[in-house]
């Protein structure tokens, strides 16, 4: 009990309470007062303990409380002097806070299945699977064959058409660095590997027989398409998480924009002097 009576915090609180009472008696206008609640004390203690992983000593706590009170006093005085106005840091922070609040309100609730489905259909392009092609090819190197390249390719084509063997094609033509069999490749990948014009011709093939020679950045190719899988949309269920994220992001954007628009009405723009520069979207 004696120890308890020696605790500075106790005295601090008692004295503070007393002063508060006295002050309250002295003046009715309490706006100037700095209040320290049990909540404040708990918060300051918990924060310190969480950061340092130690039990706080009374000395430290009292010191922190002193700092807290001083900070509050300075803060009040700064506000009354108007130091918050025209301060770039304060301005940015307030703007940021408002933006977060506006956006958070907009995504407060999960979309209904119908809403999500609607969004998914409206933004189909984002969830499309690209065209994919599987094929074999026989390569004729323009480097090795020079002028004979076209006749060599035609000769091999004739051979293929007459041949009964399933494997004969593997011994025709020249080695190609990327191999003879391409499986499930996207248009972009193939454009990178063969050049643009080759892919255009490849996608136009509509037979599963050996094609006439097609030109690439490397020479000529006889191509046998196994499968052209057209671009298609994945069902919502497979990309639900991604769609949900995108939906939320879009909602945030819309809310923020709407808010800006309503504010534009509330705070109309006046351009002072005849300036040529104008903010975008403000006519």
């Amino acid at each position, binding site marked *: 009990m004696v120890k308890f009576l020696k605790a500075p915090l106790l005295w601090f609180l008692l004295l503070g309470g007393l002063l508060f009472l006295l002050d309250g008696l002295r003046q009715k206008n309490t706006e100037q007062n700095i209040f320290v609640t049990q909540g404040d004390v708990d918060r300051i203690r918990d924060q310190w303990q969480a950061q340092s992983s130690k039990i706080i000593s009374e000395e430290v706590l009292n010191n922190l409380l002193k700092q807290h009170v001083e900070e509050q006093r300075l803060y009040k005085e700064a506000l009354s002097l108007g130091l918050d106005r025209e301060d*770039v840091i304060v301005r940015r922070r307030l703007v940021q806070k408002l933006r977060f609040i506006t956006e958070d309100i907009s995504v407060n609730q999960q979309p209904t299945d119908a809403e999500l489905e609607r969004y998914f259909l409206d933004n189909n392009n984002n969830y499309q699977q690209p065209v994919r092609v599987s094929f074999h090819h026989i390569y004729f*190197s323009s480097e090795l064959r020079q002028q004979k390249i076209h006749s060599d390719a035609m000769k091999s084509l004739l051979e293929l058409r007459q041949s009964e063997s399933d494997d004969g094609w593997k011994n025709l033509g020249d*080695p190609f*660095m990327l191999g003879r069999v391409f499986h499930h490749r996207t248009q*972009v990948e193939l454009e990178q590997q063969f050049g643009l014009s080759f892919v255009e011709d490849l996608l136009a093939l509509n037979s599963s027989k050996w094609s006439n020679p097609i030109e690439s*950045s490397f*020479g000529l190719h006889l191509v046998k398409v196994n499968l052209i899988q057209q671009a298609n949309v994945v069902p919502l269920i497979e990309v639900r998480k991604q769609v949900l994220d995108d939906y939320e992001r879009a909602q945030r954007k819309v809310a923020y924009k709407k808010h800006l628009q309503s504010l534009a009405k509330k705070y109309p723009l006046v351009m002072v002097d005849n300036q040529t520069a104008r903010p975008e979207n403000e006519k």
Partner: protein
Amino acid sequence: MKRGLITVSILLSSLLSQATEHTPGYSADRNAYFGDLHVHTKNSSDAFIFNVRATPDDAYKYAKGGAIQHILGFPIRLAGGPLDFTAVTDHAELLGVFIAMSDPSNPISKQPLAKDLQSSDRKKVVAAFLSILGDAANRGHGATVNNLKVIRSAWQETIESAQRHNQPGKFTSFIGYEYSSAPKNQNLHRNVIFRSTQVPDSPFSSLESDNPEDLWRWLDHIRSKGMDALAIPHNSNVSNGLMFQRTDWLGKPIDDNYTKLRMRNEPLVEITQVKGTSETHPLLSPNDEWADFELYDTLIASKQVAKKSGGFVREAYRTGIEFQDSSGFNPYKFGLIGATDSHNAGGAVEEKHYSGKVGSLDGNANLRGTGSSYKKKKFGQADAAETFTQWSASGLTGIWAEENTRESLFAAMKRKETFATSGPRIRLRFFAGFDFSKSFLKDSKIIAKAYKKGVAMGSDLFAQGDKKPSFMVWASRDANSTRLQRVQIIKGWMENGKSHEQVFDVACSDGLIPDNKSYRCADNGATVDLNDCSFSMDKGAVELKTLWQDPTFKSNQQAFYYVRVLENPSCRWSSWDAMRAGVTPKANIKATIQERAWSSPIWYIPSS
């Protein structure tokens, strides 16, 4: 007991079946994958001063072929299509700290040093930036701004972003960072690339120690805890001769322990990037007509010209075999990669679409001094245009790996089966062996046989008596770039206790054949029209392939061999800038460039 055994065997078999499951595109002959292992975002301290605000997510979006916004307000995108892999490698020193300091909601922004960072006066911002960096450099780990909490949160962002974008079989993202030691502005930077998600809580930076040997020891330490990583040095060209010295950090001659420590942690070196190419220099290789390629002369942001010896890759290979010859160990037996070092979250490797390196400072032709007007300004102590015009739209890493996964690519990097390009996606195979036959080149199983009968780039070839090795080179053009002009093998060897070097043309386009005295092919006559940057369409090869034997081979000499492939000339980025601005390209800048690729070497080891 019996049930236990069955459970174990089921577990084992499921593990085994998992281990042999391949991603689409798997090939036992290995595929060439292209990527960039050196990209910066807003979390790098210097990117802050370049006004770059692009995130790690932006960097991966760009790498996957997407368009992102350049800070000057235009979209940037890879015309050559998506890359196969990428690592975001922000500077570990004060990682994410500047961006946090400029964020009023972050407590660290309340520090006195942070105040001027938020100023609208550019001069104040730069002064504050420099004083913070200076403070950090002087006081190292104890610097007030070296805020571990902020760094860990930025590191976490790096990790999470890499995780979000890693798609085995499709796109690989590596978790990584840059260790940025530069004593007295001499560049000793390394990128640290992690094999998996097993990574430390925070990166080891030069604020802990600017001695790279300490970085290697730290890498050893974390590896013993299951976090495998490797370090890749870059810009040896501006290390002032420190990158490939004959002595260690303390000035003692390199020994076997140093060699093992270094090679265990640094199997690769970045040979080319935006701040120049570090293959060799005309002063080091006076007989190499192509040594004068995309050179960058001065220490970074300084006027001091860097010392040449000790700063270039080819000389380092020579130093390496000299050590091997005299002392039995080789501290410089590394493979090669290329990267961009973009600070815009997206590397500009295409001459036609060059968008600079340092955000708002060099994002357009006028800022770079290659347009119609230039307002004189400084970059550090150097003139900005003098610096920026030397910069390069380079480079990329090629990796030969079975599949596009972290495990497969990382294993290939460790065995040095890598090559570098100055931007185009030239594919380059290189093997050596004693039993390669002539028919080999036309064989449809050429690659499988080459692996079986020989060794691939990055390997040692051990002598078989007096037998002469054959080298198989196969280079294939970038389908969307200019054609190939010639393939060269660069040899270094030991003779009478000294190292020597020689460039051999081994395959040339347009039917040209190397002369057997000069070892050169005649020029193929390919040209560039500087009015519209068009180039000869009728010259050059789509692929070049040959089986070569070294006419100067001696079976008792240490030697290394690496390949250099040259494209036909095309417009350098500065000429594209000039053409678009309607001005003539500046006379002191090379108007054209011969894009190229370099393989990792194969080392011939004579029997002792």
